[in-house]
């Protein structure tokens, strides 16, 4: 089961309207067979860039974050539904980051080029393109006759 995160930017409106908008977004989520894990208010602030949607230009927005589970096929419908909602300025759905431990490779990356693994692989690849050399099968490491 994939946990998604829905980031919605709502236009500035009085509290009662805001509540109804949030309820509406949650309802559509439930309708598509999703369940909400978390709802977070990230505050109202100036947007880093102005956005024009539904025939209006917005400079400020209230940020809300829904954490939810839903079937992957429903994501497209959800985005489409929220795109048609005039109270929503912007919406994005991302997968929630699952923290996995990765060993730091900085030490190897700071080595001189011939010691780095990716460089060594490149050199090996280039060796494959070398012209084939004829092997005399004489058991000697030199050519015994005059060339």
């Amino acid at each position: 089961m994939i946990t998604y995160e829905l980031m919605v930017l709502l236009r500035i409106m009085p509290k009662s309207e805001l509540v109804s908008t949030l309820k509406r977004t949650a309802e559509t989520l439930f309708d598509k067979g999703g369940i909400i894990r978390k709802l977070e208010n990230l505050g109202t602030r100036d947007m880093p860039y102005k956005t024009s949607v539904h025939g209006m230009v917005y400079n400020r927005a209230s940020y809300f974050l829904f954490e939810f589970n839903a079937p992957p096929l429903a994501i497209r419908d959800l985005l489409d539904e929220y795109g048609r909602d005039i109270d929503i300025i912007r919406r994005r759905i991302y997968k929630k980051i699952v923290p996995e431990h990765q060993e730091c490779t900085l030490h190897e990356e700071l080595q001189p080029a011939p010691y780095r693994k990716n460089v060594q692989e490149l050199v090996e690849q280039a060796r494959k393109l070398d012209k084939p050399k004829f092997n005399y099968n004489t058991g000697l490491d030199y050519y015994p006759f005059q060339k």
Partner: protein
Amino acid sequence: MNILNRSLVRLPITILQSWTSRCTYVTNITDVPNFDMENPFEKERKQCILCKHNIIPDYKNVKLLSQFQSPYTGRIYGRHITGLCEHKQTEVETEIVKAQSAGLMATYMKEPVFIKSPKLFDVENPLRPHRF
């Protein structure tokens, strides 16, 4: 050795040999270096700043992400400047793009709120020279 210091005296070679042999044979065993030990001059393993503090970049953490952004153009600094490992650098880059798309982060500049945030790296002294 006093005999030698006093004046130039010619000593028979056998005496000299016996002196040198005495000095070389009678060595204390504890003074012999241990050749099986690990390389004492091996340098400490370097870690990037995010791995060291075990930080996972997240698109909602705009304050952190904006530190990897140029205040002049809003572009993401490369690995030779940030000094991050390959994995963390790609993570930071994807998260910045996600944050910018979600309307959390500026694209053409660094947000003025974060201009005075502490510097994680020196932009003027990259690890490797710039390609431009």
